[in-house]
């Protein structure tokens, strides 16, 4: 009995943590490598670390969104790597997961578009502006749909994540700006601020979920 329990937890650990981490790491590496390779070519000497980091973070959103979206679209596949009891649980949360994955996709693309925008990048300014606004608004609408479809625990996690995101942004961005004001560090570029919002929002989601025990491997 003990051996069965142990082997089941080891299988869960492998399937729900190790394999997704390796797959996510490889996908993230491939996306990052592709983005840097493309940007170094497209921008030439105008390529900046800030733009590359922004595009990589946008790519990270895409990788996560694709993982969640594929798992939600195919629960039989999703139960192998999403942190759920079984495929039925994914079906129960499908609306939340699909809307959330779609929102992350649009937000990820928006950041990539802005990272590739003129004057340094190949996407014209007006096209980047209109695209970013449409993608942000549509993504926010999908996120709102996901929030409305959530039960009270997920709604509480969303609200708590917003609080952590605010605290994180004020602490990290504020501290950096204090340093910049005192000319101890360079000021953040506008694209750095956008990247910071994305990173902090993602980290805040993990913190809020973890505090509710939702990251415990099933």
């Amino acid at each position, binding site marked *: 009995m003990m051996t069965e329990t142990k082997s089941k937890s080891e299988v869960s650990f492998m399937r729900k943590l190790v394999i997704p981490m390796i797959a996510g790491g490889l996908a993230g590496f491939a996306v990052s490598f592709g983005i840097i390779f493309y940007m170094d070519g497209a921008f030439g000497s105008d390529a900046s670390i800030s733009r590359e980091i922004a595009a990589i973070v946008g790519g990270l959103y895409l990788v996560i969104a694709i993982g969640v979206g594929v798992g939600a679209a195919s629960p039989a596949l999703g139960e192998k790597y999403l942190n759920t009891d079984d495929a039925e649980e994914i079906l*129960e949360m499908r609306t939340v997961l699909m809307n959330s994955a779609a929102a992350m996709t649009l937000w990820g693309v928006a950041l990539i578009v802005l990272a590739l925008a003129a004057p340094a990048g190949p996407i014209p300014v007006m096209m980047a502006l209109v695209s970013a606004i449409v993608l942000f608004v549509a993504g926010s609408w999908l996120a709102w749909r996901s929030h409305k479809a959530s*039960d*009270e*625990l*997920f709604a509480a996690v969303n609200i708590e994540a917003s609080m952590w995101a605010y605290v994180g942004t004020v602490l990290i961005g504020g501290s950096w700006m204090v340093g910049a004001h005192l000319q101890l560090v360079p000021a953040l570029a506008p694209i750095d601020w956008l990247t910071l919002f994305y990173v902090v929002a993602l980290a805040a989601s993990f913190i809020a979920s973890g505090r509710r*025990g*939702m990251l415990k491997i099933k």
Partner: protein
Amino acid sequence: MGFGSLENRLKHHREGRGWSQGELARRLGVSRQTINAVETDKYDPSLPLALRMSKLFGVSVPDLFIDDWEPEE
């Protein structure tokens, strides 16, 4: 004065009925994650959900959720 998570006897009552977390979640109209978070004291349910739980198990809310606080004399 702090408000930590309440201890609760939800798991005790659920297992007494022979229900899985999924079954209880279905009956209450919430996610399994919510049931799991309540049972492990990671989340205090809203008052409407606590009332539903008490109705479902036929016990009072204070029998489900234990609070040691006492009013001052």
